[in-house]
Each structure stands twice: as structure tokens, then as C-alpha cells.
């Protein structure tokens, strides 16, 4: 598997997106069920 900077940056961006999506999902879930 490639260990180039481009590959690492791509996985870093993927993880950043996953974190943001997760936070947004958590906020939505909380608002939905806590009324």
C-alpha cells in the first residue's frame, strides 16, 4: 500500500469528514430524542 503524503492526506481528510459527520449526527440524534 502506498505511504505517500497524498495517500496519508486523503485518509486524514476522510477522518476529518467522518468526525464532522459524527458530531452532526450526534447533535441531530440528541435533538430528535430529547425533544
Amino acid at each position, binding site marked *: *500500500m*502506498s*505511504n505517500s503524503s497524498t*495517500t*496519508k*492526506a*486523503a*485518509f*486524514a481528510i*476522510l*477522518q476529518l*469528514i*467522518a*468526525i*464532522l*459527520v*459524527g*458530531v452532526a*449526527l*450526534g*447533535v441531530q*440524534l*440528541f435533538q430528535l*430524542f*430529547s*425533544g
Partner: protein
Amino acid sequence: MDATTIRRAVVMAVGLAITSAGLTLVFLGMRAVMDVGGYCASGGPYVIAQECPQGTAALIPLGIIGGLIGLAMYAVTSAKLPGPRLTLLAWSALFLSLGWNFWEYGLNPPDGSAGLVWGWIICGVMFVIMGAFPLLGLFSRDIAKRLLWADAPSGQPVGPSQVRAAIIPRRVSPSSLPASQQDSVTGALERLAALHQAGALTDEEFTAAKQRILEDQ
């Protein structure tokens, strides 16, 4: 990028999103409980002094259990991929976010009183110390690189083809074979037999490999 890498990347991203969602649920749930004084109860046959805010009794455990499952998914897959490995930092994210709540509510009590809530501030101090501990590793260049910019592991699993390649010598002219190499052929046959007996090679693989060694003589 092969199918295994893509599958790992998807599981890693989903696991990280679930972890973040879990942390967010715990963070918001804690704030909701602190808004009503910092303690509450829900269900059971007893008279409850302070009912839990709606949903928190389910959402906080969901956040904890879901977050742990998501973190396990992330930890297993991110270890085999290049780039950030934030597993250790989930500890910091949990304790620093909850520590933030303790500090905010300890300095500005929800009941509007002007004083400080020392119990929460002490908890805030403890949580910040606990959460900051893994972050100290970021001062080490080596640890920071492993956490934020790691290489993918380079080791490949060893299969029968790698075993054969390792034990069977390349083709050489039999007439020019020196005594030391004849010994190595004998050794290769012995190692081959040992692998066969250990079950690492099937009968067909053993027969083919043995024939190839003998043909080289």
C-alpha cells in the same frame, strides 16, 4: 487501491463517525443533566426527586456503548491504513469535553447563583488532567508522527507460495552444484517434509514442490 483497503477505509470512517456521535451524545446528555442540577433518576418504583431530562436516560448509555463499538471498529482498521491513528486521542476527547462541562457549569451555576460550584470545578480539574495526559505524547516527534501521520504496516501474510519460494532453491545446473548446495537441497527436502507434516502444505503442494527440487538435481 484494492478492495480490502477500500473496505477497511469504509469501516474506519463509519467507526470514527459513530465514535464522534457517541462522544457528542455523552457531552450533550451531561449538559442536559447539569442543567437540572447535576443529578437525576428515571424509572423504578421509588419517588424521584429530580426526573432525568427527556431522552437522556437512553441517549447517554447509547453514546457510551455506541462510542466504544465505533472506537473498536476504528482502532482495528486504522492500524492497517496510512494516515492519522486517533484511537488514543478519543480518551482526551472524552475527558476534555466532559471537563469543559464541569468548568463551565462550575463557574456559571445553572441555578443563576453568583457563587462557584467547587465540586464541579474539582471534577473539572481532574478531568482536564486525565484528558491532557495522552496529549503530552504529542510533544514527542516520534509519537506525534505515529498518531497523526503513520505509515501503513508493510508486512504481508505468509502463504504457501511464500513458503515454497523461501525453501526451494532457484534452478541451477546440477553438474556445477557444489557440495554445500547439495546439502542445502537435502535441507530443503527436510524442511519441506516438516512443513507437510505440520499441515502447512497440502499433499499436492508437497508432491509438486518435492518433484521440483528433485528435478533440479
